[in-house]
């Protein structure tokens, strides 16, 4: 059975549109389910972020708040206005320390408690993660020297 040129083209276009439709469906579903929003501790309180949702929290590690017990670590992240308690099991990044800008990803248990499964810290003490810098600026706790000499580097999981 010989197909006309038109039929062939229709099959081609049909297949193409079919694959595109499937891809669009996949993308839309994935965008609904698997993206993670970034919030500062203040955002969590003000925006009433639901407990149980998977988010990223960023800010500075509150000085004096780090409690380590072997691989379990508890610390607070602050944006200068609000704090949130974070618990984490695992090895913290190389430059995780007090006063350092960090981003933690995990699940919110309630508006003040957060269980992180990933902690990101930048590799240079002068550098601040972009989200954290923005959040601090918003709370008016930004010091100009934070932003000086931004360097590359990121510890991650």
């Amino acid at each position, binding site marked *: 059975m010989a*197909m006309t*040129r038109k039929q*062939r083209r229709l*099959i*081609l276009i049909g*297949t*193409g549109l079919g*694959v*595109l439709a*499937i*891809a669009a469906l*996949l*993308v839309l*579903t*994935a*965008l609904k*389910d*698997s*993206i*993670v*929003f*970034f919030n500062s501790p203040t955002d969590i309180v003000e925006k009433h972020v639901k407990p149980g949702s998977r988010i*990223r929290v960023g800010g500075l590690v509150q000085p004096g708040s780090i409690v380590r017990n*072997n*691989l379990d670590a508890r610390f607070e992240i602050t944006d200068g206005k609000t704090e949130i308690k974070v618990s984490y099991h*695992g*090895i*913290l990044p*190389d*430059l995780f320390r007090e006063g350092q800008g960090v981003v933690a*990803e995990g699940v919110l248990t309630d508006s003040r408690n957060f269980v992180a499964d990933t902690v990101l810290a930048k*590799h*240079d*003490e002068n550098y601040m*993660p*972009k*989200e954290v810098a*923005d959040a601090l600026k918003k709370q008016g706790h930004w010091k100009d020297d934070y932003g000086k000499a*931004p*360097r*590359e*580097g*990121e*510890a*991650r*999981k």
Partner: protein
Amino acid sequence: MIAEIGHYALVLALLLAFIQGVLPIAGVRLRDNALAGTGEPLAIAQFCFVALSFAALTACYVTSDFSVFNVFQNSHSAMPLLYKFTSVWGNHEGSMLLWVLILAFFGALVALFGGNLPAALRASVLGVQAWIAISFLLFVLLTSNPFVRLAPAPFEGRDLNPLLQDIGLALHPPFLYLGYVGFSIAFAFAVAALIEGRIDAAWARWVRPWTLAAWIFLTLGIALGSYWAYYELGWGGWWFWDPVENASFLPWLSGTALLHSAVVMEKREALKVWTILLAILTFSLSLVGTFLVRSGVLTSVHAFATDPARGVFILTILIVFIGGALALYAWRAPLLRQGGVFAPISREGALVFNNLFLTVACATVFIGTLYPLALEALTGDKISVGAPFFNATFIPLALPLLFAMPFGPLLAWKRGDLYGAAQRLIAAFAIAILVGAATAALTKGGAILAPFAIGLAVFVMAGALTDVVERAQLFRQPWPVAWRRLVGLPRSAFGTALAHFALGVTLIGIVCESYFTAERISTIRPGDTVAISGYEISFDGLVARQGPNYREVSGKLIVRRNGDVVGMLTPGKRTFPARGNSTSEAALLTRGFSQIYVSLGDPNPDGSAAMRIYHKPMVLLIWLGALLMAGGGLLSLSDRRLRVGAPKPAKKTALQPAQ
């Protein structure tokens, strides 16, 4: 003095590029052969001056001339000599200079080896290439000048980011750039073809080796980057779907599509308009990648610095080139004549299938990479799109492609026999089922998807072998005949089979790494033993030592299997005083294709230390597959047909469709 020479050489290269951007194209318009022929010497001269400039910067680094700001920022006198060389491109300015150097290098190659190109096409290609060079030379000179002086000169440099002090850095960026920038040739050819309003099979035959070469480098560059991240970042991950990784993966996907569509165009003169579009898109994605990485809109290990002026400049380049090329495409593409017709089930059809899935998969990665940027610009919401998104979109699109891959080469041109191809793949399919079932039996209770994925990978590999077996008619002809047929096969046939086989190899590595990795994270005291995947790893204690520009604390671990010592691991943590930062140095023990991976966490005062220990089965296959893929590309590239290049002019007229 040396820095000034480098600076002036770069300015001269810019002037030459301007001339190269005007004269050859004017020559073509005015039908003046002498004028059109100026492109080659100009391209070669441009390359020489950029090379001089690059050599000058290298000299500044090697002699630790800290009066040059760039050297002060990124080098240290105590750094090993190798890293003094590699830190030339371990920073924004230097890496852009490398970008320009490679661009000029490719331009010079076209000038030197493009002798068999029609004069007009060659002139146009060099003209287009010159405009890309102009924009990036301007970018370097105006926003990222590596030769800026610092007065008074400091005594010591600020050192290179410790993560970048690694042999991985020596190779990853040059290979990646050779890939990125190599696609500029395909782009220049596409634009030249659109300017001329004429394209034929010979065009595809010239473009294919350049695309293939770029693709080989990009494949190696991505693999190197992945392996580097794997052992340097200390997390044992080899691919994070990080925007910067995606930036290199996007041109790889569309470049792979371009390679395949160029085959159709060369063999059957079909898909011309599509091939041109892919050539434009592939280089556009390289530019997008450069923009994402270099503008600082993303913060990652690659964002050397953030300077809005640079972002705006690259964005402008991006818009001018992509917009310009697409506009030219919309205007001129209808002039191109359609080529041969083919049935949906045919080699062409299979290659269209390949292109469809590759480009759609590429589009989903593109959306996932840019969506956070777009959303933040529009609503201010900050989100991160990570692995779950890409696993949910990319993988479902990759699976049909992988399954269809063995069928493609077995289908005939014009009209293929799917049933016949399926029959010939029965053996491959049976092997795949067997291996899949064996995997399921061995890993009972494990992930359900893993045996399927392993089976698919084996199908891909066995299918690639089937292609060679079928072409040589092994098992069907008497051995001597089959042998002669096998030896007589073109190298590109082996190249195809090897590259396809290699994809299966990589897939096995990915599946095993993803599903069967064992992980132990714990605090270990000296004398303790940790058991993982049949190995006993005992901790002997911590040792401190002084490196050239760092201090290191490392753990000593002995690995035993059934009581016999099989190796020693010394994961370390290095502190670099010049920058006050530290890195983890993971230790790896290779057993066959599998690896034991240990990275050191924080050492405690009592001599114990937190450690992350992995057993990663078959993990090396991920990169071995990439190497084999590049090897397949190289085999194809060495094919006589491509090496000899385009047909002679007399033959060419026969190949051209009637105008």
